[in-house]
């Protein structure tokens, strides 16, 4: 349902493990050569900055996320903000929220914190769990592989959103919500990355250099660390870059369904779900969080695309006619 399948399909292509690894500097150069990726990176940098400086920005504006301003809304008309485009004014740079009159700018910049923190945290969890299980399945004996593969299937079968909803309800409320969200999204949606890692490990395992390492007397752990993990870095990074925006979408989806972070902590998805009915009376209320979410997800997606291109060994030689196989040798 989500971008996850896509990422699986696309990231799979990035992993030709036998291909020569472009060095970090080379990747960086190739990344910089893509204008879109540079723009994406810039947007993300800005976003991170905004998220980190959210309290400061609010303070500069002179507002906070929780203060109610009943005087700025028309109580008799359902609380629609007074003034144009959601009540934009010198005091409230992006207007106020209908009903409560809370400051939109403060809420939006604070929302960035949640979106980023949850998306990054969840991705980290997914990578740890996914790489761990994928490696274990790929390297373990048949029993371990079967067991882990079944569990992975279940994780993939179960839509992340459903599982997350169920789990959110079980965990005590005292648990910090952003952390919980990151953990739950992470623990729910690691299936495809695990599958990817397992497939990579299986194909790497059949390569001669792994056999050579065995002949050199290396044990399984040593092979995993020395021979496999370095080769997994590229596909895993590619995949992780695609997971971040996907996780952002899941987080906002959960918040949209009303089970994300708890008020008064602002989050974009949550704002959108309240804004859902307001698109006629106060379009600004819808458009602002929608735009923030869209831009962030887009920036991450673009960057992920860029990273994939940069890490893709074939990107270097786009021209291909002739006896492809030999050329790659010759080129390398």
């Amino acid at each position: 349902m989500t971008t996850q399948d896509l990422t699986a399909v696309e990231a799979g292509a990035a992993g030709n493990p036998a291909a020569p690894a472009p060095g970090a500097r080379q990747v960086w150069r190739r990344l910089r050569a893509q204008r879109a990726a540079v723009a994406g990176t810039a947007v993300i940098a800005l976003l991170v900055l905004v998220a980190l400086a959210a309290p400061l920005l609010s303070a500069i504006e002179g507002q906070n996320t929780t203060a109610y301003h009943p005087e700025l809304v028309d109580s008799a008309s359902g609380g629609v903000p007074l003034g144009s485009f959601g009540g934009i004014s010198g005091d409230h740079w992006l207007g106020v929220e209908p009903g409560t009159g809370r400051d939109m700018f403060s809420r939006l910049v604070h929302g960035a914190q949640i979106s980023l923190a949850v998306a990054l945290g969840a991705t980290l969890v997914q990578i740890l769990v996914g790489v761990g299980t994928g490696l274990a399945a790929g390297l373990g004996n048949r029993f371990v592989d079967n067991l882990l593969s079944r569990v992975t299937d279940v994780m993939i079968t179960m839509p992340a959103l459903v599982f997350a909803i169920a789990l959110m309800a079980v965990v005590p409320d005292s648990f910090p919500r952003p952390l919980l969200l990151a953990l739950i999204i992470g623990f729910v949606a690691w299936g495809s990355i695990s599958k990817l890692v397992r497939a990579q490990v299986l194909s790497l395992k059949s390569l001669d250099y792994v056999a050579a390492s065995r002949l050199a007397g290396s044990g399984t752990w040593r092979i995993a660390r020395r021979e496999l993990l370095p080769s997994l870095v590229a596909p895993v990074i590619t995949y992780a870059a695609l997971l971040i925006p996907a996780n952002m979408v899941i987080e906002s989806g959960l918040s949209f369904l009303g089970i994300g972070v708890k008020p008064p902590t602002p989050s974009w998805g949550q704002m959108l779900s309240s804004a859902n009915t307001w698109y006629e009376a106060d379009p600004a209320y819808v458009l602002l969080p929608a735009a923030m979410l869209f831009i962030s997800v887009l920036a991450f997606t673009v960057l992920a695309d860029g990273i994939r291109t940069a890490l893709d060994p074939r990107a270097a030689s786009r021209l291909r006619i002739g006896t492809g196989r030999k050329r790659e040798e010759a080129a390398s």
Partner: protein
Amino acid sequence: MIRFLLRRTVSAAVVLLVLAVVLYAVFYLAPGDPAQLSCGPKCSPAQLVQIREQMGLNDSVYVQFWHFLQGIVTGHDYSTGTGTVHCSAPCFGQSYRTGELVSDILVAKLPATASLAIGAMVLWLLLGIGTGVLSALRRGRPTERLLTGLTLAGTATPVFIIGILLLMLFCSVLQWLPYPSYVPFTDDPQQWAWNLLLPWLALALVESAKYARLTRSSMLETLAEDHIRTFRAYGVSERAIIGRHALRAALTPVIALSALDLGTMFGGALLTESLFNVPGLGQKLVQSVELKDLPVVVGIVLVMGFAVVIANAAADVLYALADRRVVLA
């Protein structure tokens, strides 16, 4: 083929069983008393005791789970007070809250979900493949750059944002369409389609972006393959090469992926159903999770899991049919 089916069935059963166990465990641990749920808000303790007895909640979890499994295999008889009703074979029990048979709920909610999923799939395949082929054909030209930008935007937009924007545009600003409310196909096919148009569009726009990218990249991949070079070297026109050879190969992963996506959607496109008020499985699931109505949750998720498992197998079969080199095992 028979071995393939057999193996698939066994592994599907295992996956579904694990799913059921996990859900049961999660919900068993969750706070909330099913008897309370059934009894309603102002329920007396005496009544609770009676209801607990009636619903078999005094048994241990294991016994309850065992009964649940039994119901799936052999069906179950329920007392109506004046007599019994038989809930036939795949019986997922009764809703804690309303006492409805879960199978009835599933049957009632499936049409909406299926309408949404199938319609959206048709649309996203058309849109996605069309865009993908076009951008592969026009590679390096402005058209491709435009399409690439659009599909990128599509993949980056959560479905509920597209949904809200569509509602805003078509229902509020332009007022071309009614605010969608589901009408069953059997009641009025035209209204059915008319009301599902926006949810279809929302899902299709998001999904088609993915398919466009997939089509495009596997098309380009195929176009770079050696056998395409052969046909070029024999004077076959580019149009024929793309139409007959490249598209054929590119469609294989597209078809397989759409089988998977369709499977997932049969469990309900949660956000879309909730945003557009499509009374399908997804919406019911969200409600039931909120209400801790375990039997309904388990029933829906199992159906969902079943659909995904079937879809997985279907994807493999489609793959094998499309590409005879693949051996089913």
